């Protein structure tokens, strides 16, 4: 079929799944902000309802209603106050360095979340539901662990080689998914979820084997040696802070992602396929190859996240170093609307949650509240009608064949 004969009616209707993904990602900032707000609000309800002091004071509500109401207020203030002092500025600190440490911790936690979030975002923009960042990170961690504990090189070079190893290992894992999807039509959700298990168990196996990654003088726990000092991502702001060079890698990753998706022809092809794969195919784009490329580049971001995570901790590496980042990345990508700027904001928010969760525990608030808030935010973003109904927002205009219009404007098709 030549391009001139292309008629709208002949296009395959896009699959429901892709259109849902598109609707979720089309989220405007207002709706996302409102979702976050609502998440915090319901989180506060959880904090209050499960606080024993509040329950006690409300059982005597008749006797002292003021006290009952004030316990509610104090609970919320203590909980979110602890989140603030654990993630932004510690008002009880003796000096500025201790005061500002929480903010540097937020940045430190945000780095890997942002990089992994970009990995998932990229595939979302190509219309792929990629659940595989966990597995890609595990394989990347294995690569970084091998280079950082088994090879010995000079300062900086060692770290860069370890980062590169992580990226390459992760890319291999991404390419496997791409090829399975492109050649056999296997669904990427199933393939990535299963490969997550394979990768986690593979890394565990490597960590168990004395000849591979197992620590030299350990008790047989699946744990590696401490990475060489030369391979570690050093402190960025001096020894008082744990913040490391991972933040620089995150900044580079954000810029590369932005340029790739918004400025390069490569990224344009990605977005075309994401908007409407059959239109893109009709326009002469090799959709299958695009899938492979997208998954490979996406996995590179996941590998960078893995390297940052692995080369910045005290002690040897275990699988738990991944810390659920691969899964949180899906949430970060959704919350950030798969745009570079959005992912940065979402990564910072989730980084703040991680940094603040221990001070919330110290303040006596269960950190699971933050898990609830996170989950609710995503739920609200994924369910636009709920948010529209709650805040009485107008229904967005349906975008009819936006991909085709865009393609026409760009003169890819006539």
């Amino acid at each position: 079929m030549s391009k001139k004969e292309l008629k709208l009616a002949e296009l395959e209707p896009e699959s429901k799944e892709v259109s849902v993904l598109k609707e979720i990602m089309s989220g405007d900032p207002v709706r996302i902000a409102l979702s976050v707000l609502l998440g915090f609000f319901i989180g506060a309800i959880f904090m209050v309802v499960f606080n024993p002091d509040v329950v006690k004071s409300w059982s005597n509500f008749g006797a002292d209603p003021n006290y009952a109401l004030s316990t509610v207020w104090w609970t919320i203030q203590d909980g979110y106050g602890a989140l603030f002092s654990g993630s932004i500025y510690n008002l009880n600190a003796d000096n500025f360095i201790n005061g500002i440490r929480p903010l540097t911790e937020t940045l430190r936690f945000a780095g890997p979340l942002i990089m992994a979030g970009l990995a998932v975002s990229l595939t979302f923009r190509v219309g792929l539901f990629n659940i595989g960042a966990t597995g890609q990170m595990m394989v990347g961690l294995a690569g970084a662990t091998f280079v950082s504990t088994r090879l010995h090189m000079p300062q900086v070079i060692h770290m860069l080689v370890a980062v590169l190893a992580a990226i390459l290992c992760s890319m291999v894992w991404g390419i496997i998914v791409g090829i399975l999807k492109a050649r056999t039509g296997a669904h990427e959700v199933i393939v990535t979820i299963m490969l997550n298990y394979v990768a986690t168990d593979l890394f565990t196996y490597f960590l168990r084997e004395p000849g591979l990654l197992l620590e030299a003088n350990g008790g047989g726990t699946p744990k590696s040696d401490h990475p060489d000092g030369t391979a570690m991502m050093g402190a960025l702001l001096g020894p008082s802070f744990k913040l490391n060079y991972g933040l620089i890698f995150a900044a580079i990753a954000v810029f590369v992602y932005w340029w790739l998706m918004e400025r390069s022809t490569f990224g344009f092809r990605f977005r075309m396929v994401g908007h409407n794969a059959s239109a893109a195919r009709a326009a002469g784009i090799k959709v299958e190859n695009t899938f492979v490329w997208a998954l490979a580049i996406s996995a590179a971001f996941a590998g960078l996240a893995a390297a940052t995570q692995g080369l910045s901790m005290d002690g040897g590496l275990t699988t738990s170093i991944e810390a659920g980042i691969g899964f949180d990345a899906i949430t970060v990508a959704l919350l950030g609307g798969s745009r570079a700027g959005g992912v940065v904001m979402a990564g910072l928010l989730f980084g703040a949650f991680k940094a603040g969760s221990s001070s919330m525990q110290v303040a006596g608030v269960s950190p699971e509240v933050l898990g609830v808030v996170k989950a609710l935010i995503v739920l609200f973003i994924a369910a636009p009608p709920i948010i529209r109904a709650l805040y009485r927002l107008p229904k967005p205009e349906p975008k009819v064949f936006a991909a085709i219009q865009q393609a026409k404007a760009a003169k890819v098709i006539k």
Partner: protein
Amino acid sequence: MNNVSRKALAGVAMAAASLLVLSGCASPKPGAGYIECGVSDEGSWTDKSFNESVMDGLMKAKDEFGVELKSAESNSSEDFAPNLQSMIDAKCDVIIAVGFNLVDAVNTAAEANPTNNFVTIDGWSNGATNLKPVGYNMAESSYLAGYAAASYSTTKVVGVYGGMKIGAVTAFMDGFYYGAKAYETETGTPVTVVGWDATTQKGDFIGGFAPNDAAGKAIAAGQLAQGADVLLPVGGDQFGALSEAINEAGSSAKMIGVDKNWTVANPEYADLMLTSIEKRMTQAVYDIVKAAAVDKTPFTGDAYTGTLANNGTDISETTFIDDALKAKLATLKAGIIDGSINPLQ
């Protein structure tokens, strides 16, 4: 702006007032003003295993001495350092890091914060004088459990499996193995230990400490099929899965509890519990807090090792252990304490 700051002031005043009221009401306790803090290993404070034992000790000290308790759970190894840092920021007088996995993080924190006091349960100190390692000689009590298991067993096949192959786990398995073999040497009746061979250090492991792991259940089913009628799972709370495996096999096998006295702590398993190998961390934590908060003894980095001799570890009494066996175990215990019996031979 004005309004906000007035509200804030009112809040501060209210907090101060409530503090006054609170301190007015509470009768002064010997440990008031002391802050004890705990950071868990991966897992919750209610894991029915070592995290919970430590928390019990902290709670006991809080209730009896009126010390303040702050605690944080770790969900992954990424949380260890930030949780310890939060405790340092909260100006804790003693920070108890539970579990061998935190050993690197707590050593780093202890070196970086020489004015804070730390305790590492099941870990070790790289030399910091403000870090007290708490360890246990679990082989001693496990030896008694191994002997009791071999004696109680009718098939003379006993089973043992671990969460992961780490020192804190294999200490139990070694002691259990040699205890069972001691029964064989003494009576001449051959005893088979399935799941662990202390001479080759090879055996069955679940691969993690997730409660009631399916892999653990499969291992238990395999050991039951080999005739084992007393089983020891060294991996936190595996007793739900193990009791299911026993029921499904239609076996009358018994289990041996780990870390806590399971007969008392979980009466639903009492009919199945031959005994428990207790690691009395509750007592150790309580003693450490008491020494610092009440007796005002200066904190040192000297190691605490729980043994049969200092009652830091022992096996629990149950109705399944008859008087003859009890007397025999008492002799063995005395032998281990005076050094005439080596639990690792």
